[in-house]
């Protein structure tokens, strides 16, 4: 349990005060006190004495020290310091002391006598009738305390009055508060002071700065051109002005209408459409439909034209009426205020032609109406006919029924009638339309809306040339009004984003109520424009009042100063103004009539910027660059994703964001493409349809990705460097070990990927070159794939670390271990018996080529085959041949040790040396003598990992093997000339292969060292050598000769520095076994490992699918192939041996190589025989199953040894206890060595004149060709350098059931006999 940080801090910063030491002293004092009490003496005296005593002691001590200090140089700190106890005064003592010095006034009331001078009676002024103010209320206790205290003071009594109380002023507190109460009613609060609650709002202006304003070049300018002001009503208008303004307004309307000339346009349209209609041939369905449409259109257009015509006429009429009113008013008031004058021009027309046209028009319309009516009638008629038909049929039915009823059941007549339902009404035939009526209607309408034929065309013309009555001739009221007008002045304030930026000069109001400003304001803006306001102020004298406020829309960014049209804005104000002169005021009813009827109310209103008055636009810079901000601000944002929309932005239709709808609307409403007012829309639509602005139906997440891409995906894919980097990080086998990737693209050649691509491409193609048949190739491929998938699985699993993977922590030595170590110290040193020490382990990361070395220590050999006496005589060879005839049945007695002396040149029995080859480097020991040589030599071989990758995975998958070969060194005298023999030695050294040991590197790596005596795999037959046990012969006293059990070699192999082997995966595999079984097996495993911690215990193993399987599921009786059982029908022992041999012939493939750093995968016997490869478990399981089916008691024993060292199955790691307990290899070998005999005979017969130097059969189970070649190669037969040497080679493959092949390679090297 760790302390918290706070506790720790407290611990380290805590001040350890010395414990107060006065405890015993106080006790002492207490006891003394008790004594004192007993003695009845005063305490204080004792105390003082005691103190004095103490002081005295201290002084004495100090003096003594001083004396010594003068002479002692070596002083320690303690000499200067003195430890004193903490001072403490007891509580009761402290109280006592305090009592001496402090005064605590009592709370009891003071007797009146002590407050007054002596012999004075208290005198109460109240009782004497004097007014005494009320004393302020004081708490009695406080008063007592105060009195007590004051009395203690000097002259304390002066504070007391005659009545014995403390002198006090009357209570100063007023009875009622002098300030009025603050309550009030809501209604009474001044409206100006009322507060309104507003919610907290985020300011909007923060983000509205125009982008890129940091850039000094980007300045934006807004030009506001306030050109003028015209009032359409003003409080100072006289009545005449009102009328004049109205007249002007109407005239304006008239002018605009005339400018548009809608009537003319529509008339033309009607005539044209009529013409079109007649042109169309009324044949096909389409054209008929077309005609119907035309008719519809013509009717519609005519209606429109009629409406327009009517409006025109009404307008003209009202203009004339207003003018008449104006004239009447002028007459009435006898002066004129306005210069307006209306002229009406008559334009003569050709009466004949006009009438003609009029008639034509009417006729056309009438005929049209007639046609329409006719159509209508026809439709109605057909409807009528249909109804009539129905009615008739109903009638008929009814009659029939009636008849029936009458015949059958007369009484139910009524009911059945009801059943038939209501009688349908008899349809009335429609009336034929009255054509005469139609014409009359048309004429009437035409008279109403159309100018009469022959009547002159009236064209009003308004001029301002009329004389205005001068001021002197006006009546008083009018004069006052004019005076008032002259006093008025107007100016305009320009507000930008609600801030006043500038104002115009104030201009006086003219008689015609027009003000011309003509000022242009250039606004340099920083903020995004939100609103531009113009405020119109009217000033009379020095005071000014706001007349109206006009909001000007912020212009589009395409509107520039040069091109901007002047716009007019209307405004009005609701101020009420009345005058006592002729001015009509504003918001006040007034009347034109003298009798006050027909009142009207007008509000001050007018047009700002009207008639060229105000214009807002973006300025143009000196270099013709518009100083407008980019339109991608608030509103324009929606276009940013759609580049195609730019066309619209050019046109300036900013509000149109749904082009589809617009197009649809345009199609539906049949916009006239020739109409100039539609021109912009038509253009827009053409742009839209042409540019295909269809808004994409899909939604793109990163819209501008493509626009902003640096390069395309393909380019990125093509980049070799990136590919290499990616493949490396994906740990693709070919690139996993790439250390450095060049930084330049050009430094990487295409070749790098060739292998990888080839592998990808040829994944499915099976290469049968390496394998004998397609089946094996297939199996190899399958194995490869399983390996890959398993490796991938485990690569992932390997990233699951546990604490010990990350933290390397030395184990805390236990007591027992310590004791053992101590005991070892006491052990006698034995320098002659050196021990191997534990070395420090090195993690594999920081290693490079050349750092790792393989140490092979060859200690000694046992029972190395000895040379057969060398003889060139045929009988010898024949003898040897005979000796092979029954090599295993009886010891060869013909070879006596005495023959050793017969060796040429007196050579010993054998001169063996050991050659170790590993990774293309070959080293050998010195040559020793005899069949039991002792080398004790260390061979150092360099090791380099594949691709320079020294990670543990890579090291585990190293498939290199250490070959340890034993050779016999044979010296031949090659001196040709007998005369030279005296002074020259000329010999040839030959080496003869005797046997070998193969140790895979992975074994060494995983075991970290290999120490022991190993059986050398020797060929069953060695030409020229005998495998006798020769121990006895050397000693000379052991007469017993036995066949050698084999050759052995003592080895010690290790890696320098010691590498940490990769751990096997501890991952839990999912299992299909039952939960109970798994738990039980786990319990068993735990129990077993508790009892025998050194022994491995397996309960579940992983099958080839990566599932955990209970181990006994692999063991089932399995019938061996029938051929094997038939081979020895009555020799069960032989059969058993043959079966064992069969199993041994299935090639070996250690798991640790195929599934590097993974685990043992167990395959079933079926999978094993299909794959024809497996390691010791599979072999053992298969053999066990075979034996079980043969009725033998067989057990599978799992142990630990140097794994997979030899190529013999069931070697040391798994022992199959068969009944006989015999070696399983013999029977089959006997069978097959017959072949060797014949081969040797062949050799002999062919080359009877030759001497074999060496020769042996190699026996291998078949997996691939490459290992066989390697095995042959490793024997070094080819290294014989004798002149005229010849080689003999024969291969025999013995087939076994189930594609199991036993391969024999017979090699001999021969030298021709002299």
């Amino acid at each position, binding site marked *: 349990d*760790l302390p918290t*940080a706070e506790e*720790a*801090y407290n611990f380290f910063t805590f001040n350890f005060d010395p414990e107060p030491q006065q405890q015993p002293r106080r006790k002492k004092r207490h006891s003394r006190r008790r004594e004192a009490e007993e003695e009845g003496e005063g305490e204080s005296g004792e105390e003082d004495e005691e103190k004095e005593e103490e002081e005295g002691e201290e002084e004495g001590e100090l003096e003594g020290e001083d004396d010594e200090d003068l002479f002692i140089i070596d002083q320690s700190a303690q000499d200067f310091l003195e430890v004193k106890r903490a001072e403490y005064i007891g509580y009761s003592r402290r109280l006592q002391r305090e009592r001496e010095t402090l005064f605590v006034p009592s709370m009891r009331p003071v007797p009146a006598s002590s407050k007054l001078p002596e012999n004075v009676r208290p005198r109460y002024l109240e009782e004497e009738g004097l007014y005494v103010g009320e004393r302020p209320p004081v708490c009695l206790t406080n008063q007592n305390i105060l009195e007590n205290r004051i009395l203690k003071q000097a002259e304390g009594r002066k504070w007391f009055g005659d009545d014995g109380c403390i002198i006090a002023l009357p209570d100063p507190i007023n009875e009622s508060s002098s300030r009025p109460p603050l309550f009030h009613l809501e209604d009474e609060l001044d409206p100006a002071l009322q507060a309104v609650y507003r919610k907290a709002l985020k300011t909007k202006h923060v983000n509205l700065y125009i982008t890129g304003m940091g850039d000094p070049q980007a300045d934006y300018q807004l030009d506001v051109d306030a050109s003028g002001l015209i009032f359409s009503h003003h409080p100072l208008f006289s009545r005449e002005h009102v009328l004049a303004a109205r007249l002007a307004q109407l005239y304006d309307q008239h002018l605009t209408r005339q400018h548009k000339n809608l009537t003319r346009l529509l008339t033309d349209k009607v005539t044209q459409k009529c013409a079109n209609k007649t042109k169309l041939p009324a044949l096909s369905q389409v054209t008929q439909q077309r005609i119907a449409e035309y008719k519809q259109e013509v009717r519609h257009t005519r209606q429109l034209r009629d409406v327009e015509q009517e409006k025109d006429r009404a307008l003209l009429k009202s203009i004339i009426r207003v003018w008449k009113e104006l004239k009447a008013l002028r007459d009435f008031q006898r002066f004129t205020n306005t210069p307006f004058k209306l002229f009406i021009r008559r334009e003569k027309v050709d009466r004949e032609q006009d009438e003609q046209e009029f008639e034509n028009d009417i006729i056309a319309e009438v005929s049209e109406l007639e046609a329409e009516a006719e159509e209508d009638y026809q439709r109605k008629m057909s409807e009528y006919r249909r109804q009539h038909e129905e009615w008739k049929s109903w009638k008929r039915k009814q009659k029939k029924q009636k008849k029936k009823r009458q015949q059958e059941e007369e009484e139910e007549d009524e009911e059945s009638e009801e059943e038939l339902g209501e009688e349908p009404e008899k349809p009335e035939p429609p009336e034929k339309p009255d054509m005469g009526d139609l014409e009359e209607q048309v004429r009437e309408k035409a008279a109403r809306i159309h100018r009469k034929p022959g009547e002159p065309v009236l064209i009003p013309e308004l001029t301002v040339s009329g004389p205005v009555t001068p001021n002197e001739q006006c009546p008083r009221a009018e004069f006052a009004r004019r005076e008032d007008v002259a006093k008025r002045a107007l100016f305009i304030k320009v507000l930008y984003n609600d801030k006043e930026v500038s104002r115009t000069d104030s201009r006086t109001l003219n008689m015609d109520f027009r003000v011309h400003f003509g000022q242009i304001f250039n606004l340099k803006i920083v903020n995004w424009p939100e609103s531009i306001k113009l405020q119109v102020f009217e000033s009379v004298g020095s005071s000014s009042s706001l007349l109206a406020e006009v909001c000007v829309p912020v212009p589009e960014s395409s509107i520039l100063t040069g091109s901007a049209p002047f716009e007019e804005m209307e405004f009005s104000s609701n101020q009420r103004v009345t005058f006592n002169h002729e001015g009509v005021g504003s918001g006040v009813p007034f009347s034109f009539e003298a009798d006050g009827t027909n009142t009207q109310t007008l509000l001050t209103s007018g047009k700002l910027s009207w008639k060229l008055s105000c214009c807002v636009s973006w300025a143009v810079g000196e270099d013709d660059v518009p100083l407008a901000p980019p339109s991608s601000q608030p509103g324009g944002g929606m276009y940013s994703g759609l580049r195609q929309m730019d066309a619209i932005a050019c046109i300036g239709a900013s509000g149109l964001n749904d082009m589809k709808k617009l197009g649809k609307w345009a199609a539906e409403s049949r916009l006239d493409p020739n109409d100039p007012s539609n021109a912009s829309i038509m253009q827009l639509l053409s742009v839209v349809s042409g540019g295909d602005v269809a808004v994409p139906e899909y939604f793109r997440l*990163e819209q*501008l*990705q493509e626009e*902003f*891409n*640096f*390069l*395309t*995906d393909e*380019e*990125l894919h093509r*980049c070799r*460097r*990136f590919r290499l*980097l*990616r493949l*490396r*990080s994906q740990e693709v086998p070919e690139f996993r070990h790439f250390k450095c990737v060049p930084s330049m*693209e050009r430094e990487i050649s295409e070749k790098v990927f060739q292998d990888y691509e080839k592998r990808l491409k040829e994944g499915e193609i099976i290469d049968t070159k390496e394998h004998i048949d397609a089946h094996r190739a297939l199996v190899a491929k399958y194995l490869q794939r399983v390996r890959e998938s398993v490796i991938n699985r485990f690569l992932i699993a390997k990233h699951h670390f546990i604490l010990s993977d990350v933290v390397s922590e030395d184990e805390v030595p236990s007591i027992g271990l310590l004791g053992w170590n101590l005991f070892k110290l006491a052990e006698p040193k034995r320098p002659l018996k050196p021990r191997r020490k534990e070395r420090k382990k090195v993690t594999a990361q920081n290693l490079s080529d050349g750092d790792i070395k393989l140490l092979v220590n060859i200690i000694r050999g046992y029972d190395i085959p000895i040379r057969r006496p060398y003889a060139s005589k045929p009988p010898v060879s024949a003898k040897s041949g005979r000796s092979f005839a029954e090599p295993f049945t009886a010891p060869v007695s013909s070879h006596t040790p005495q023959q050793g002396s017969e060796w040429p040149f007196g050579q010993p029995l054998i001169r063996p040396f050991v050659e170790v080859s590993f990774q293309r480097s070959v080293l050998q020991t010195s040559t020793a003598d005899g069949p039991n040589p002792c080398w004790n030599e260390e061979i150092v071989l360099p090791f380099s990992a594949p691709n320079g990758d020294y990670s543990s995975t890579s090291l585990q998958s190293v498939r290199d093997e250490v070959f340890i070969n034993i050779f016999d060194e044979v010296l031949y005298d090659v001196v040709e000339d007998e005369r030279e023999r005296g002074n020259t030695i000329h010999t040839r050294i030959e080496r003869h292969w005797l046997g070998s040991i193969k140790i895979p590197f992975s074994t060494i790596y995983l075991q970290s060292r290999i120490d022991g005596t190993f059986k050398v795999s020797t060929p069953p037959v060695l030409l020229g050598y005998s495998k006798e046990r020769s121990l006895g012969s050397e000693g000379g006293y052991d007469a017993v000769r036995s066949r050698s059990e084999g050759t052995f070699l003592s080895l010690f192999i290790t890696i320098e520095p010691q590498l940490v082997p990769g751990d096997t995966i501890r991952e839990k595999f999912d299992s299909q076994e039952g939960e109970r079984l798994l738990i039980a097996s786990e319990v068993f495993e735990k129990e077993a490992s508790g009892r025998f911690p050194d022994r491995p215990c397996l309960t579940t193993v992983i099958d080839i699918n990566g599932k955990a399987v209970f181990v006994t599921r692999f063991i089932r009786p399995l019938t061996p192939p029938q051929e094997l059982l038939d081979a020895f029908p009555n020799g069960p022992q032989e059969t058993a041996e043959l079966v064992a041999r069969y199993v041994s012939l299935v090639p070996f493939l250690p798991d640790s190589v195929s599934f590097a750093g993974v685990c043992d995968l167990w395959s079933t016997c079926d999978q094993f025989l299909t794959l024809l490869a497996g390691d010791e478990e599979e072999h053992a399981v298969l053999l066990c199953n075979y034996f079980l089916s043969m009725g033998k008691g067989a057990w599978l024993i799992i142990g630990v040894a140097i794994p997979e060292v030899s190529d013999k199955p069931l070697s040391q790691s798994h022992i199959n206890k068969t009944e006989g307990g015999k070696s399983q290899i013999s029977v089959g070998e006997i069978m097959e060595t017959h072949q060797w005999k014949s081969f040797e005979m062949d050799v002999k017969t062919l080359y009877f004149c030759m001497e074999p130097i060496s020769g042996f059969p190699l026996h291998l189970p078949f997996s691939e060709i490459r290992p066989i070649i390697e095995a042959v190669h490793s024997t070094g037969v080819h290294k014989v350098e004798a002149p005229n040497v010849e080689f003999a080679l024969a291969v025999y493959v013995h087939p076994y059931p189930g594609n199991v092949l036993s391969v024999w390679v017979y090699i001999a090297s021969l030298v021709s006999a002299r």
Partner: protein
Amino acid sequence: MAELHIIGQIIGATGFPQNSLFCKWGVHAGGAWRLLSGLKEGQTQVDMPQTGDMAYWSHPIDLHYTTKGLQGWPRLYLQVWHQDSFGRCQLYGYGYIHVPSSPGQHRLQCVTWRPLGSWQDQLAEMFVGGGPQLRSPDLIYSGADRYRLHTVGMGTVELELCVILRHFDRYGVES
């Protein structure tokens, strides 16, 4: 072929209510980005500082990206977790930070936040630990509809990142 190296470390965290913390981290980049090598997510060890407030992790980050566009510049998202004395882990904060776009060494501070549950949640958290977590941790860097979320600020995670740009200038990106 613009390349971006992000090399650095998650130094530690400070300002959390408890200081036995660990951190889950990840780098999120847009679709245009491709990871060439390096681990783009991981988890630090649990640091239980005996003194001081700061938990130190010194967790290395080494990433190599290539990109075909600037969009979706890599960002680092963090989850700080607390492991209590019972070994239970409890979320202490979410945070995210953009990888700096200028080359050089940067010392970054990533502030973190944590969703605040209802009062029942808070009460439960006080006594039995645990606490509200985001249903989809994508929200850390996507930030949609976050205004509904009630959060409480937690401590700060300190990072040190070195950014190396390569060949960005070929595409007009000045560094």
